[in-house]
């Protein structure tokens, strides 16, 4: 009789932490501070033409030297800029992260009962005048200057890119080479720029050890993310995570292919301890398979729930902080003990590795009518390790076949060597016969 292996599930989620974060604009720095955009996290909230963008920042270095030039598709005023809470982005990152799901085989000798235990609470690692005068002479008008949180914001209306660039140079900022051309192109497309600098006094008053994310709310028919400036002061390829929060459905790029990463694959047990490595290797391989020109979908889900949950869905209050303006104030200020789940919010997490060669154009997006849920979910199926009270040779044989399949799948996904994978798998009933190498394998090397 064939054994039926019923799952006794304990869902444990392991998260890939998106370590480095940065702005999507370009950094400018004084003196010799070397600054690189490594990875950016951007939250885009969009409905009709109304957009709220939140840019997370992981700038590490002397805050005194820091400034960032951010392009926006339209003119903005000081009140449209806000400083957000980094914890909310971390929560969103955790909620949408690729996850590992663990299942345990039950005792093969017992008549099974389906037991399901979900652990939503599974621990996760948390996951001025002189200025103005010099500006005018350069064809740059400082339209306004504000202090928002720890930032001094200068809203510039430059008519010419060389004016803006020269102004930055004269104020001791280092400009990546090639910036002028791109800035000029953006200006002709009616895009505007603002410069954010750290106000040290405000920062020490506020007591933050890190720079908080900047948020901008604007209305524009352009659903896009300018990435061209970001490629200028980057060494090699950059990582970008875009979290889109929309009312109807999944967001995709219209000028690049959006591809779902392989998901719902059963992988060997050891991947649990090497999840970050596994995910990186798989992402590398998939990127190459798409000729390094694709945007990858990592998560698409209705914000109201999750299964399994890598982290609880964001509360209405958190979503409102990110700029989800269509959630009424009423929902946020509800004093009920149980906060209602957010409705009408669909989250899309996109991951793109880009450089100027493969992504010459800015990312253009559209909201689709697709409300199908998708998540990066990788399954670990632990074999039964308890004492057997009956003959389990048949069960062991089936586990062995399964482990072999998992090894093969892992090799396909990551490009890792099958031999190395085999070494890390405790095969049921001992190690497998070493695979017989074809005679020609070592003929010429």
């Amino acid at each position: 009789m064939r054994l039926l292996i019923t799952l006794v599930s304990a869902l444990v989620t392991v998260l890939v932490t998106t370590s480095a974060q940065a702005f999507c604009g370009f950094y400018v720095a004084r003196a010799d501070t070397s600054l690189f955009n490594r990875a950016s996290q951007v939250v885009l909230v969009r409905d009709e033409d109304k957009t709220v963008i939140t840019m997370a920042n992981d700038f590490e270095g002397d805050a005194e030297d820091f400034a960032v030039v951010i392009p926006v598709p339209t003119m903005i005023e000081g009140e449209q800029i806000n400083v957000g809470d980094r914890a909310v982005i971390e929560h969103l990152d955790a909620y949408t992260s690729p996850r590992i799901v663990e299942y345990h085989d039950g005792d093969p000798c017992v008549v099974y009962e389906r037991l399901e235990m979900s652990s939503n609470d599974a621990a996760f690692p948390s996951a001025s005048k002189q200025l103005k005068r010099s500006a005018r002479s350069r064809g740059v008008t400082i339209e306004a200057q504000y202090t928002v949180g720890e930032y001094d914001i200068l809203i510039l209306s430059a008519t010419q890119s060389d004016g803006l660039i020269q102004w930055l140079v004269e104020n001791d900022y280092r400009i990546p080479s090639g910036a002028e051309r791109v800035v000029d192109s953006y200006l002709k497309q009616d895009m505007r720029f603002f410069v954010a600098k750290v106000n040290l006094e405000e920062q020490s008053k506020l007591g933050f050890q890190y720079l908080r994310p900047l948020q901008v709310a604007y209305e524009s028919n352009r659903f896009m993310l300018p990435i061209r400036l970001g490629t200028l002061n980057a060494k090699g390829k950059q990582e970008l995570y875009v979290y889109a929060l929309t009312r109807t459905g999944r967001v995709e790029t219209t000028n690049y292919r959006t591809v779902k990463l392989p998901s719902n694959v059963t992988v060997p047990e050891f991947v649990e301890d090497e999840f970050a490595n596994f995910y990186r290797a798989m992402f590398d391989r998939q990127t190459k398979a798409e000729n390094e020109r694709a945007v990858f979908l990592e998560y698409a889900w209705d914000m109201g729930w999750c299964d399994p949950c890598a982290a609880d869905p964001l509360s209405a209050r958190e979503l409102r902080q990110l700029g989800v303006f269509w959630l009424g104030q009423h929902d946020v200020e509800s004093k009920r003990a149980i906060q209602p789940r957010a409705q009408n919010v669909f989250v899309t997490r996109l991951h793109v590795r880009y450089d100027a060669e493969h992504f010459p154009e800015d990312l253009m997006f559209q909201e689709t009518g697709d409300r199908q849920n998708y998540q990066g979910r990788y399954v670990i199926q632990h074999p039964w390790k308890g004492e057997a009270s009956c003959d389990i040779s048949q069960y062991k044989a089936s586990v062995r076949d399964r482990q072999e399949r998992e090894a093969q799948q892992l090799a396909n996904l990551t490009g890792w060597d099958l031999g190395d994978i085999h070494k890390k798998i405790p095969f049921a009933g001992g190690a497998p016969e070493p695979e017989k190498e074809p005679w020609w394998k070592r003929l010429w090397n």
Partner: protein
Amino acid sequence: MKLLSPLRDPRYFQVAVLTSLLAVGIGILNFGIHWQNAATIMLTAQFVQYIGTRLAGLPRFDPLSALITSLSLTLLLRTEFASLAATAAVIAIGSKFLIRFRNKHVFNPANVALVSLMLLSDRAWVSSGQWGSAAIGAFALACLGFLVLTRAKRAETTIAFVWAFGTLLVGRAVWLGDPLSIPLHQLQNGALLIFAFFMISDPKTTPDAPFGRALFGAVVAAVAFTIQFIFYQPNGPILALILCAPLVPLIDTLLHGSHYQWDKPGARPSASLKGVHS
């Protein structure tokens, strides 16, 4: 019954190219085409074509055009609901029989269905960026092959559209000081190629006179460019075609030309296509 020579009717070639694209799209690129939708669109389109043929009292049932419309729709329309896919097929084929002017249908069937669905429902959309660069290369070759095979007969619309759209994109890049890789990237778009070679090229919904067709292609390109790069909305070409469709009867009134018949595409077809056989 005498069979038509496949090479005399360019639609056979179109069916072959679109079918291969669909196979690649479902099998390899995996870009979200549900086979259920494909089947629903094909069957519904043929059914409506049959009913329309009977009601309009046409001499014979011609499944080819409806098949091409179905293939274009399947390739471009995305929805999770088979009912919306079926609605699209009904609108597409129905419009051919119902919205007519001087013995010609006004709107391109697949085009009118796509735009109607986008307006009627927020659960249907057009995915324009879902083609890898390799697929686009192969597809572009197939499109060029099509032009060679048909000796560019009635291809003025396509040529004028591609030329005008390409010129506008390159012109924009030059004005902005952008590298040429940007307009090249913008042209490497699967949906754009389907549009140029299989939608706007439809001789039944384009002007009868050659100059009229070239003019129409260029106007559609200008409107598409405006939608996409001045108003920054996706799907510029598809929206442009529907906006420009009413111009066709006007151009036909001003410029006279011969009405197109699928099985008699040119004056001397056998002479010009013999070389392909031998």
